[in-house]
């Protein structure tokens, strides 16, 4: 098995080490950010429209305090949507991943930065997940499972489908990967 031939995405050749700190982060697909914005906008619009519909419907009378609440909600909800859109945009621009020869790292977080590093040797199995919207936009989530338990599943969201497949291939063809599988 030749990992280099399948996927040449090294940070540095040979056995020389690149410290985690010096990794060049690769951003997630731009479509992922746009998709999240779209979903966010869609969700809040639906809630807003439902509320508007409930307020304007002529069939049954509403008590005055309920009318007051809906009046406030009609401006609070778009505001929340806007705040969430800004937050998501910022959060998504801070998500990135990086590959070294023997491990994959994923960083996220605006104020509380977090970087998870998953060594390829310890990967037990891999899943590539696509929801309906992700399928439409040919995005994918890559999940790497280790023996660390379900709580510590390593996930990179918003990858370009071909890129996700390449990473999966890289992990599967890694000369050390899945060596424990037959022992289980």
């Amino acid at each position, binding site marked *: 098995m030749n990992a280099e031939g399948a996927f040449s995405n090294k940070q540095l050749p040979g056995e020389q080490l690149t410290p985690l700190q010096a990794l060049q982060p690769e951003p997630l697909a731009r479509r992922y950010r746009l998709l999240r914005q779209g979903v966010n906008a869609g969700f809040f619009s639906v809630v807003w429209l439902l509320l508007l519909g409930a307020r304007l419907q002529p069939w049954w009378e509403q008590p005055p305090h309920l009318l007051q609440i809906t009046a406030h909600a009609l401006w609070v909800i778009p505001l929340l949507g806007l705040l969430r859109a800004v937050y998501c945009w910022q959060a998504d621009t801070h998500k990135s991943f990086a590959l070294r020869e023997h491990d994959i790292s994923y960083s996220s977080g605006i104020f509380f930065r977090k970087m998870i590093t998953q060594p390829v040797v310890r990967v037990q199995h891999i899943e590539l997940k696509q929801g309906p919207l992700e399928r439409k936009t040919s995005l994918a989530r890559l999940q790497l499972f280790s023996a660390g338990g379900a709580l*510590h599943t390593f996930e990179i969201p918003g990858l370009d489908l071909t890129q996700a497949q390449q990473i999966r291939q890289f992990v599967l063809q890694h000369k050390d990967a899945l060596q*424990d599988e037959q022992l289980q």
Partner: protein
Amino acid sequence: MNNFNEPGAAPIAELNQTVSQAQWHRVSPIAILYFAVAVLRFFVGQFVYLIPPFILLFNRIKENPGLAIGLLSGLLLLTITVAVLKYYYFQYRLSAGTVEIRSGVVSKKYLNLPFNRIQNIKLEQPLFYRPADYVCLQLDTAGSVHQEARLVALGRPFAESLKQHILDLRQTDTTAPDNTSVEPVAPVKASEAEQLLNQRSLADLVIHGISNNRVWLFLGLVAPFYNQLADKVLQLLLQAGIDLPAMFDPTQQSWFVIGLYAVSLTMFIMLLLTLFSILGSVLTYYGYTLHKKQDNYIRRSGLLTRHEVSMKLSRLQWVALKRDWLDMLLGRVNLSFEQINGQQQFSTEQKIMVPSVTPAEAATLLDDAYPDNQLHQVTFNPVSKRFIWRYLLLYWLPAGVVVPLLLWLQQQQTLAILSSVPLAFWALLIVMRWYRYGYAQDNDYCYIRRGYFGVDYYCFAKYKLQQVQFKQSWLMRRAGLCSVKLVMASGALEIPFMAEADGRALLEQGLYQLERSNKAWM
């Protein structure tokens, strides 16, 4: 009682057969008893919430015993029928490299388990198996709980030789691909003697019972009976000339005497609870021995049901030395060898715990598992004092302001002042947590110290890491600090507020070790 392997346990002829040649077998008929107990346990587990109404109806039942007897005998008959059927349909077949089990009365279950997938082998001997020396052989896989195989009721010599066969097979299996790498493994001698590593005396178990109060479990079990119990106890006391309600009646006694009574009553209850806890400890760990055979650790213990757990040394993820404050006072340590923790709820069964050993014994055991560890020589680095500030400002201060203020505003001045006691204790806990946190590393191992009043040490080989996490907030970055989470198959350990350079070095070296060494983690 003979707990040791018979060295010359006869080889099992069937293990050389192919699947088509192998025959299906039933286990010994004593298994009926085993299944009956299991069924009864199931009933009790299902209907435990029916016990309180049942007790309330007790008087009604006393008036009408015929119905109760009919109901009980019906239940008994059902249990026996189910047990016999379960026994009848339980069959197993051994062939080269696999064990197959067919079971189930209504819904049939078929399990095929190759020996090389077996992670753990446990021998369990309930009380009623002891006269004829039968055991229940339990084979665990790393996968889900539903994949575990139980061969109920095998004769001990047969079970022992089967176990040995599986262990030997695993040994040759796992060493075969490794032959090219570092460790040349000597050919396995089938009948190597067991080496006794540790043994717990009754006195040790009593100490364990005192320092590790597991009585809450017991209290939870008897919860439905509290009212009845209290009434009975009061009646008994009254007969003995002690009138508790009168003793605590402020119209009859002075406050000082009531206080004295209260203190002595509390002491008495505490004593009682401790006694129960000691009883629990003795039940679980009676006759505790830890043996080492080749690379396997074997733990045997239990007063009623004897448990035998074996673990291969290579499956060991970390060694934990835990002491709470009472252990510190009594000079004892609870040492546990922890391995893969796939299902959280079975973690206690999976690890090998050595209860209440002395620090010197703990050091010997640790050195035996990790000969080149330096836990007792390393100096631990403390974590930053910002740890205290973070928890004080983020959680303690808001609660410390809001709770007394609210109480004060509601005219509960005494309560408001009294609330400073738990608050002060909480603050003390935060400071102690910071004081106990420490980390150190050498070339191969990483050491973590933590705790509140007691202190726990964790020691693990770096190549056992599964995943690492590096966390840093904006404020921590400015102060050159970070938090690090180390994920292993037995769980995750976190070191908060350590120096950034140390954290990065720790992760870098850990990853280097595990990626370079190519050693299997299990």
